Structures are given as structure tokens and as C-alpha cells.
């Protein structure tokens, strides 16, 4: 309590922020005065002074003069000015408001300083050079994008064709002021807010209808976060991952987020279709959006709106977080693999293909053990990892001759017996 009071008392308001990179650019650019933009978060007395309009909104916008001429900066007729002075090790800023010098000037670090706090844990040069595609920017994808930006990943490809809607807000990173924006736009801004130097490409498209685009995106990425809400897209992404030998991290929640699972694909290992054919994998998953669930068939076309509403069951954001968190860690381990970073030891821990998590002992997890005294029994709030056998005849990741995939296919012999031989003399008649 003491500390907080001390900090509050010592602070001189308002606080000004000047972008160090922009300052360097202005200082080296050799131009004269420059009409910049000031952004003030209303009522918060926090002012950002920029040489150019920011790509994402701050609040109230005003003008600020950047100059090297002290007389100009100190002129009482200039409402807000930044006096730029050159030193041996770069440039510094002095802020004047109507000619009066302001005390509390801070610097937004330039690019090489921005993520220096992560140094020693993450290998920044490596992450900065990596490209991550995030397919699906809902409650999973939005959080993961921002976490990866915080970690210093340098290149993003964002795929989602939805807009931010009211029902998203409880679990989404977007705020109410962003209602109606394309999720690709909103999350691109969120990523750039954490890492202004990230390269972000936006693809507001339905990948199931744009498979060649999906293929190109996967080919140009080092890793794909699969955060969509339907299996068709997962199978389509799986095909592209196998084709181009890219890493994929899949995650989803089970009904009402009572639990969930995470799957990691690495080239040469079991693929998502191997997992789905594995028998232990449940097709049941959380349905959070009626329109989307109708589109992908999770809610059958014949189901009434009233019945559909009982199927749509949204879990808590707090129950989604652990799943996103593991997906982020798996992604960082895969992106840093072999780089001898501070998370190298995790390569020995996160060796599993498939991970399960339970938030509550309900339904699917009803017979799990209560946390107190569970001993070796499965409990909530713990990760359980499993190795999945790669199916050598898998229809999706086959490396063998084409006909060998027959062994993996659902041949329906039980139906053949039911149908019997009823083909004698039957001929195909085809219309044109």
C-alpha cells in the first residue's frame, strides 16, 4: 500500500510518450519542422506524440510540432511542440506546451529494445524471423495472436471472415468499441499494438472455399495455429500441413468448456486425421455460435431455432485460457526448436502429440478424481499428454502407395452384409 501511494504522489501528470524510432527517423531525415499528431486518452492524462498518424486508434487526436529550433518549440503560440536535440548516442526530446517546458517525458523503445526483457528466455532473432499463420480469430485465435506478438514473433498471417459481434465480447480480446470490425483488422491492430514492428497480413476469407489460398498461406508459414470451430477446416489445414511439411497446433474446447484438448502436428508424425481415426478422440466439441454451427453442419439444417439455442453453450473465458496457454507454449517451443534458448528444456517435456485438460468434473470428465487425495488418478486442472500412433495407411498423411490407404478407410463391411448382392442386371443410367 505504501509503495502505491508513493508512486502516485511522485507522478507528474500529464504523462507524455514520444516514439524513439520516429524520433530517430525525424532526426536523421534532415527535414525541417514536421506537423505530427498527438493522441490523448481522454480523462487519463496520457498523451502520445507521434510524427505520423498511428495505425490504431488512441483517443482524442491533436497536432504537435516536431522541430530542432528551440525558439519555435518554446513559442507560446505553439500549443504543443517537441524540441529534438542531437547527442553522441542519438536524439532526445523536450516537450513544450504553449512555451512551457513539460517535465515528464518518456520514450517508447526503438525496435531492438522492445523485447529485450524476454532475452535469455526466448531467442528473439529467431522468433522475429518466423511466420505464424493463425486460422480462426475467435476466443482462441485472438488471445494466441496477442501472446505470440508479446513473445516477439515477427510475421503473422491472420485468417478469419467473421466480424466482431456482441456475443464474442465475453471471451474475445476485442472491446465493445470494435464491434462490427473484421476480426482480421481488429486482431492485426492488437498484434501491432504489442509489436509495432510485426509484419501482419490479413485474409478475411472462408478457407474452406479458398483452398488454394490456404495452401499458399501454409506453405509460406513456419507454423499454423488451427483455432477454427469446425472439422472440415481442420482436415483442409491438415492436408496443407502434410503437403508442405509445416507444424500445426490445434486446440478446441469441449461443451461449455468443461475441458478441452490440444493436438500438435510435426512433419513425419501423426496427423490430425490419424488422431481422429484413433478411436479415443471425441467428435464432441463446444458450439458457441449458432450461425457458424449451422454453416458447418454441427447444428443440422432441420433443427429449430429454439432447439439450436440449447445446443449453443458458451464456456467461461477463464476455462479457455489454459488451452490457449499450452498452444502458445507449444508454438514457442516449435518455433525455437534447436536454437538453445531458455525454453529448450521444454523440448524434453512437451513431447506429446495430444494433450487433454479438464476444468470441471462434468459429463466427459465426471468419473475423474476429485483434486484432494487424487494420487495418480486423473484430476481437473492438470495436463495429460499422450503419444498418438501414426497410421501408416492414413488417408491424409500416407507416404505409401495409393491403394494402401484402403486399409485405413472405413470400408463399411457391416453395410455390405445388410445390402446383400442385389446387383444382377442393374445398369447405370446417367442424365447429361
Amino acid at each position: 500500500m505504501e509503495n502505491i501511494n508513493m508512486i502516485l504522489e511522485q507522478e507528474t501528470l500529464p504523462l507524455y510518450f514520444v516514439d524513439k524510432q520516429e524520433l530517430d527517423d525525424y532526426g536523421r531525415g534532415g527535414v525541417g519542422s514536421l506537423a505530427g499528431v498527438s493522441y490523448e486518452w481522454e480523462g487519463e492524462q496520457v498523451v502520445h506524440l507521434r510524427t505520423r498518424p498511428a495505425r490504431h486508434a488512441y483517443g482524442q487526436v491533436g497536432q504537435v510540432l516536431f522541430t530542432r529550433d528551440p525558439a519555435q518549440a518554446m513559442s507560446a503560440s505553439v500549443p504543443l511542440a517537441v524540441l529534438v536535440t542531437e547527442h553522441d548516442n542519438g536524439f532526445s526530446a523536450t516537450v513544450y506546451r504553449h512555451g512551457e517546458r513539460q517535465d515528464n517525458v518518456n520514450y517508447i523503445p526503438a525496435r531492438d529494445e522492445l523485447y529485450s526483457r524476454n532475452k535469455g528466455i526466448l531467442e528473439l532473432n529467431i522468433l522475429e524471423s518466423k511466420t505464424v499463420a493463425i486460422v480462426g480469430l475467435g476466443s482462441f485465435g485472438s488471445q494466441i495472436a496477442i501472446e505470440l506478438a508479446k513473445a516477439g514473433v515477427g510475421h503473422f498471417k491472420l485468417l478469419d471472415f467473421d466480424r466482431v459481434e456482441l456475443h464474442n465480447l465475453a471471451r474475445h480480446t476485442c472491446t465493445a468499441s470494435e464491434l462490427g470490425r473484421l476480426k482480421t483488422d481488429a486482431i492485426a491492430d492488437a498484434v501491432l499494438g504489442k509489436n509495432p514492428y510485426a509484419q501482419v497480413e490479413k485474409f478475411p476469407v472462408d478457407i474452406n472455399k479458398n483452398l488454394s489460398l490456404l495452401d499458399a498461406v501454409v506453405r509460406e508459414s513456419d507454423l499454423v495455429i488451427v483455432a477454427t470451430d469446425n472439422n472440415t477446416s481442420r482436415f483442409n489445414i491438415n492436408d496443407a500441413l502434410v503437403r508442405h511439411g509445416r507444424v500445426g497446433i490445434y486446440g478446441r474446447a469441449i461443451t461449455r468448456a468443461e475441458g478441452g484438448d490440444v493436438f500438435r502436428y510435426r512433419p513425419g508424425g501423426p496427423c490430425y486425421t490419424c488422431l481422429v481415426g484413433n478411436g479415443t478422440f471425441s467428435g464432441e466439441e463446444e458450439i458457441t455460435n449458432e450461425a457458424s454451427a449451422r454453416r458447418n453442419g454441427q447444428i443440422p439444417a432441420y433443427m429449430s431455432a429454439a432447439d439450436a439455442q440449447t445446443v449453443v453453450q458458451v464456456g467461461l473465458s477463464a476455462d479457455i485460457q489454459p488451452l490457449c496457454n499450452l498452444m502458445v507454449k507449444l508454438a514457442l517451443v516449435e518455433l525455437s526448436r534447436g536454437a538453445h534458448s531458455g525454453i529448450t528444456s521444454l523440448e524434453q517435456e512437451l513431447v506429446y502429440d495430444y494433450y487433454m485438460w479438464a476444468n470441471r468434473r462434468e459429463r466427459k470428465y465426471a468419473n475423474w478424481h476429485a483434486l484432494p487425495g487424487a494420487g495418480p488418478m486423473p484430476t481437473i486442472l492438470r495436463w495429460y499428454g499422450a503419444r498418438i500412433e501414426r497410421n501408416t495407411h492414413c488417408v491424409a498423411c500416407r507416404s505409401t502407395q495409393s491403394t494402401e490407404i484402403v486399409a485405413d478407410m472405413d470400408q463399411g463391411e457391416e453395410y455390405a452384409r445388410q445390402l446383400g448382392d442385389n446387383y444382377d442386371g442393374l445398369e447405370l443410367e446417367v442424365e447429361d
Partner: protein
Amino acid sequence: MIDNDRMNAEVAVFNFNRVPQNIYRFMDMGTSKPWLAIAARTNVGNTYTLRIELDKFPNEIPKVFVTRMLTTRSGAPMSGVSASMHTLSSENGRTRICHYGSQAWNPRVTLFKIYAKCRLWLEAYEGHRATGRDLDYWLKHQA
């Protein structure tokens, strides 16, 4: 979209289940709208042709149509979405069969299995024509 490897594997599964090759044909392969035409005969001896659209197969449940508009016992066209009749919205004047649900679908499901489920649908359809009962009476909901 279905590729040649997969098509050959589907033929192998048809052979394995003793479906003669003269009752089906892969149509418009190499275009953006490939489909399978396959004949079916019910136990009482009526014949039908099924159209299985393969442009998104096997990653997505394929659309299956009877190549004409079927009618109910009371003569109404079976063109709409119906839970009890196991139909989806018709296209181009063809009744569309609801044969698989999304939770049960995966790319390992074969065209033979879809064909077999549609054969059973046709048996149920004829049951409906004979008795007036909805197809639901014979078909449990396609998972």
C-alpha cells in the same frame, strides 16, 4: 477435392464389397465439380440413380441427391429440410438425402459406406410410400 489416389482406393473398396463396376461411373473428373453417378436397386426391385458430389470430398460431407424429385405418399415433392424424412434442401429439382452428421464425419469414410447408407434410405423411402410412416421410423438419426 477427390484425387486419383483416392478414386482408385474407392474403386478398390467397391470391389471388396462386390459392387460391380458397371453400376457406377466417376463423372467430370479433373473439373471443379466432379461427381459419382451410381445406380441402386431396392429389395422390391425399384431402381434409382444417385449423384454424389465430390468437389469437397473427403474433407467435407458430400452432397447426395436422387437424380429426380421424389414425392411423399401424399404426392408432395421431397424438396425441403426435414428431420423426420432425413432430407436436406433440394437443388436442381433433385431430392437431397441427409446421410451423415458432422460429428461422425472424417475423411476415412468411403463412398461405398455413403452409398450403403443411401440404399437404406431408399428402402425407408419405399417403406414410407407403402405405409405413410415417416422415414424416421426405419432410420435412426444419422450420427
